[in-house]
């Protein structure tokens, strides 16, 4: 009886809510504000929503059609993400435009449904890595840089620190990683680079959630590495930085991945994090027109989603704004071909595949210097954007390098091999039909 009542109620709920959104581009926002990663997910969601609000207020939407959005809480669980996906995919006049799961496990759980539902997925800076080969994965876009590309940039950064890639020979690099699918994903590409450049690599897994790493770091100390790559997520990062300091490994020998690169990781580690380097898809600093616009059009109007201090100053918030930028730009590109009306998922997929964020467009949008210029194509769903490295000075992140390009000569063959394997397993004929 309980189920009967709940089914009747839910039926009416969907009916009422779905007719409320019409005549707008619908952007589903599957955020995680609760659960173990809620502290990272909440600012990102705030950034995303703030950017959409700003576009509506400043530009009146995209191509004259306003943006509508709805948040759904996933708590970083794949089954809840699938439920949110199914609930939101048909909302809005033309259906959902694009999903950004902000989680690798979440991405994997819906990849097989995308072709039937005709909805694209933007997975900026995370899995599924081999989706960079768009001929096998037409609906998944790991924009800007995927895990493997960022890994090559990291080795290049270390090379830069040493004064040249030749000086990498004979170095000892420790890879402290989160013991999960996410953490293990870069091992093959790191081993390939170790082969190519002649450095020694050793992996040190940290059991989830990573609050107790004393034993791991004792082993790292015994290994006497020259550099330590930190591939963590969530609370593991701050613990790793603190343990590294305790083991007298200087912070500037730590190189973190983009998901170990936020104030949430460095501030709790206190003094131990000063000098810590990590990679990022965006430039550090808050002096960009886009953040001024958000403060002016959203926060000054009292519509701010999160805290005012976060705007432009918090890494996760800025990544959220970046997510918003990608969505809006893709919708914008789609309207160039399909006209000024609410865009459907299929049309936005074309938009993403033909994204061309060159310097002129970045300047127009007020984000010149915030992100590098890059271009997406069918075979290259990534865009091969360069990666920035930043260092923590105790109060904020500062640039530690220029934009370092990724080494696609190493990454691309691996991606194509992996994608071909997937195509064979699933019986997909790869092809680029535009």
């Amino acid at each position, binding site marked *: 009886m309980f189920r009967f009542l709940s089914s009747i109620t839910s039926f009416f709920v969907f009916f009422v809510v779905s007719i409320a959104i019409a005549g707008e581009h619908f952007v589903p926002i599957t955020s995680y504000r609760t659960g173990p990663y809620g502290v990272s997910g909440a600012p990102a969601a705030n950034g995303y929503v703030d950017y959409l609000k700003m576009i509506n207020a400043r530009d009146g939407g995209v191509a004259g059609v306003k943006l509508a959005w709805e948040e759904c809480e996933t708590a970083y669980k794949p089954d809840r993400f699938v439920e949110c996906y*199914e609930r939101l995919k048909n909302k809005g006049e033309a259906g959902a435009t694009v999903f950004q799961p902000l989680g690798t496990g979440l991405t994997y*759980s819906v990849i097989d*449904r995308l072709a039937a539902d005709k909805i694209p997925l933007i997975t900026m800076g995370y899995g599924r*890595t081999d989706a960079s080969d768009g001929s096998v994965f037409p609906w998944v876009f790991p924009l800007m840089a995927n895990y493997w590309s960022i890994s090559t940039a990291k080795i290049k950064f270390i090379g830069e620190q040493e004064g040249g890639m030749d000086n990498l020979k004979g170095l000892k690099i420790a890879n402290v990683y989160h013991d999960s699918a996410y953490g293990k994903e870069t091992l093959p590409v790191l081993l390939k680079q170790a082969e190519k450049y002649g450095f020694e690599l050793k992996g040190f897994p940290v059991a989830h959630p990573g609050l107790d790493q004393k034993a791991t770091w004792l082993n790292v100390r015994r290994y006497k590495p020259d550099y330590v790559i930190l591939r963590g997520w969530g609370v593991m990062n701050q613990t790793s930085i603190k343990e590294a300091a305790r083991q007298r490994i200087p912070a500037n020998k730590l190189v973190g991945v983009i998901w170990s690169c936020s104030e949430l990781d460095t501030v709790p580690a206190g003094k131990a994090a000063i000098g810590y380097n990590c990679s990022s898809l965006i430039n550090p600093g808050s002096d960009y027109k886009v953040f001024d616009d958000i403060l002016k059009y959203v926060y000054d109007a009292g519509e701010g989603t999160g805290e005012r201090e976060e705007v432009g100053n918090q890494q996760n918030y800025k990544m959220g704004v970046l997510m918003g930028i990608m969505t809006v730009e893709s919708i914008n590109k789609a309207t160039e071909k399909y006209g000024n009306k609410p865009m459907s998922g299929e049309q936005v997929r074309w938009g993403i595949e033909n994204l061309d964020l060159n310097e002129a467009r970045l300047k127009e949008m007020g984000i010149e210097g915030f992100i590098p210029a890059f271009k997406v194509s069918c075979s290259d769903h990534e865009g091969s954007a360069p990666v920035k490295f930043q260092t923590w000075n105790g109060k904020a992140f500062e640039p530690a390098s220029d934009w370092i390009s990724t080494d696609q000569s190493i990454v691309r063959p691996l991606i194509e091999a992996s994608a071909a394997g*997937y195509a064979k397993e699933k019986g997909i004929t790869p092809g680029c039909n535009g």
Partner: protein
Amino acid sequence: MFYREAGQFKTSYKKDQAILPIFQDKIAMVGMLLFCFVVIPMFATDYWLTSILVPFLALSLAALGLNVLTGYAGQISLGTAAFMAVGAFAAFNLQVRVPEIPFLVAFLWGGLCAAGVGILFGLPSLRIKGFYLAVATLAAQFFIEWLFTHFDWFTNYSTSGVITAPPMTLLGMAIDNPLSKYFLVLSIVVICAFLIRNLIRSEIGRSWMAVRDMDIAAEAIGINLMKTKLLAFGVSSFLCGLSGALWAYVVLGTVEPQAFDIARSFEILFMVVIGGLGSVSGAFLGAGFMILLPILLNNLGALITGGTISTETIAHIEYMVFGALIIFFLIVEPNGLARLWQTGKEKLRLWPFPY
């Protein structure tokens, strides 16, 4: 008034031993099956089928398994999700290495492997009981999760450590749309539920209940404790393995070992406790409660507030309401929802008379 047995006489032993002896029960069961197989597919949307009904059915199978172990045989287990993981990975590994095998055989194989692992981790039950056994099964939970994360052989050396279920075809038909998936899971669950219902009423089921109630007395009257307890672990883990395979193949499509972590074990334990220990319908009621209630609260929250309250607050309210309801149920009816249902049926037999 309509639930009376007056006038229904059993004229043979066979009729007396039927699963549903009361005529009205037979009608209700047929009605419910018709509803599940005919009415729901006609009216349910894709969202309902994919996100609510199929996960509900898959998890209720696991809850059924745990109910057999904890509710009927009295062995507390916190390793349910580990056995689900074994089922999922075993089915996947068989299909990946021997592609010609039909997926149903792979499911059965997954169940059998899970049964084997369950029996292995059930060996401590021969010496320890209650809380200590729960801790021993907790070891199973962590060990299995670690095993699948660390040894790439289990994920067929995939770089990302997740397994992707191969596509399923039955008699030439591909099972890839919500409706066919729903029918597949529903059929498997209905068959298993009937089999378990029968098993419970047999000698094996009675020996399980004897072991649960007082194992020393059970041993005294000649029940072989080792066989009984290990059989309980085996049957329970078989169901959990089958449920895990369904979870990986039908519900999610790709699964990493973290999908079967300790939180999942606790979720299924709560389903069984709320639904009612020691009843087949209890597994379904508990699973329905745990899956539907959060979604209902989420949707109600979105409807009532219309987006003015953040999803974060709604999620937190969800947890609070959920916890409060669990506490309420455990105080008001510690035997779970199934007992409430049974009390209701008993009152119906006398209705409209108060006693």
